[in-house]
């Protein structure tokens, strides 16, 4: 009896813990929908931020700025991550394979704020100004190991028979990889890339002292650039109710983008493929 009692109690506890964890997701979404939904209006997407104390305005520059920073990070990070992943899966050699894989995992685990320091000393210090480019470099460094490991995992899932077929037809190894293996794993690789971009687009810590912030449209990539996550932070910790309202609205927009990307990538694109996580 006693053992059965313990059994029932412990099993129920684990179920309760699961429910508790999952319910935080709905709690977070509920709060954001309620407060963010009340604060979100058309001006948010079309207007610039107003000076302190004035009610209204929007974050059009931060939305565009986020797009610029993340887009540029993707241009830098995706090719490096992709080819490194191809190396690990297809061209790995005994000497460097394991270290590259291990270091990629370590790089993935380095706090984003430390990556920010790297971008600061590589880009901000020489250019003597905060810039969108510096923010992109920081985000690219975070993106590379994610894309590398995901690309590797998905290429490894390509069946041996496909490779053998290509080789039997006389294809050289690089032709086999380029025309058979990569296309076969392309859905998964694309999923990994989208998830990686979704992850970096929510980052604010490495942007605080690289891309910094901007109340205006800002110029090119060498100017300080506003972004949604950084705006949320500065608005949330400010002392003005109207700015808090804007933080909620921006939070709702950010989470909508990140979760949409995640759901699309995991459910639609990678249907039936298990998505590895680092």
């Amino acid at each position, binding site marked *: 009896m006693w053992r059965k009692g313990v059994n029932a109690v412990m099993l129920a506890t684990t179920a309760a*813990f699961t429910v508790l964890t999952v319910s935080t997701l709905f709690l977070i979404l509920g709060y954001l929908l309620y407060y963010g939904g009340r604060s979100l209006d058309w001006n948010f997407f079309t207007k610039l931020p107003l000076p302190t104390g004035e009610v209204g305005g929007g974050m059009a520059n931060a939305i565009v700025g986020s797009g610029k920073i993340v887009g540029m990070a993707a241009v830098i990070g995706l090719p490096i991550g992709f*080819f490194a992943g191809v190396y690990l899966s297809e061209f790995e050699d005994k000497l460097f394979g394991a270290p590259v894989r291990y270091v990629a995992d*370590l790089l993935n685990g380095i706090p984003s704020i430390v990556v920010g*320091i790297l971008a600061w000393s590589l880009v901000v210090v020489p250019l003597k100004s905060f810039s969108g480019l510096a923010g992109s470099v920081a985000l690219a460094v975070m993106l590379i190991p994610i894309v590398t490991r995901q690309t590797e995992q998905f290429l490894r899932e390509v069946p*041996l028979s496909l490779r053998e077929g290509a080789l039997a037809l006389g294809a050289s*190894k690089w032709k086999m990889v380029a025309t058979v293996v990569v296309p076969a794993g392309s859905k998964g690789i694309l999923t990994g890339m989208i998830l990686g971009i979704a992850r970096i687009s929510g980052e604010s810590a490495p942007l605080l002292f690289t891309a910094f912030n901007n109340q205006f449209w800002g110029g090119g990539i060498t100017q300080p650039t506003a972004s949604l996550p950084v705006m949320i932070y500065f608005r949330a910790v400010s002392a003005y109710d109207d700015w808090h309202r804007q933080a909620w609205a921006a939070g709702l927009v950010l989470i909508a983008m990140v979760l949409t990307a*995640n759901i699309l990538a995991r459910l639609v694109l990678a249907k039936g493929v298990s998505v590895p996580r680092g």
Partner: protein
Amino acid sequence: MATSAAVQAPAIRKETQTGDMIARLIVFAFAASILLITAVLVYELWHTSALSRHKSGWGFLISRVWDPVTEEFGALPFLYGTVVTSAVAILISVPLGLGAAIFLSELAPARVSSALTFLIELLAAIPSVIYGLLALFTLVPLMRIYGGPFLKSTLGFLPLFKGPSYGVGFLTAGIVLSIMTVPYIISVSREALLAVPREQREAALALGATRWETTWQVVVPYAKLGILGSIFLSLARALGETMAVTMVIGNDPKITASLLSAGHSIAAVIAGEFSEATTATYQAALVELGLVLFGLTIVINGAARLMIIATTRKGSKRP
């Protein structure tokens, strides 16, 4: 590894070999850039913090003074805050995460398990600034009005729950961190539990063990290295977490036993003060804090990855 070793391009013509050679070189160059980036990161942290390292030496780690005006910099209050908040986070998230992982891998029907796992992965995808935003406007007032007074009236005899509480502080930051790290513990532990061979469970059940006894005395010990790896991985995340912590910890470099008190952390002070640091020594001190944080997380992560590699390798051997 097995696939690339098994499939060797036949050396029919010389030109195909040159093509392979070039392709190999190209992808290797990209892979090597990961090693290069990491090396540059270490070099920059070391090089940029030189001014501060030479000025205060090892004393940096044990000094309690942080005064940008007189240019005296000590890391101890920040180190303390980082360690305390992460410890609180792990104390909460390990039982919660392990329990949920057990439920998902051992008990829930496959469809329920995969649906819940999907939701938990979404939880892990939520940006940290969003956690900070929510915690600032919901958890902080809750802790100020209910949590703090309640803990003081019931456990106030402990030094952990003494003194004034304003809602922000070590405990609040620790709770937010625990919510953020639970998804990592769950998904890595779940994978470690799923890698335990079926025969282990069947043998225990056949000997008359209950479901819980099977899980707790057979399956969990078998996967313990992977579970430990997941805990270390989450610990490293908690140590380096920036935005959510800086928004709720109070940003006050203090060392007190009270968890209700406001504090500071390494990541939070870098985030808060770096863009305002004007003098070279001030910047170098913040970079040195970054170096300390880097060292801390790299050791813990390094250990975690080795443990996870060890268990998944063990698991992949099953028939």
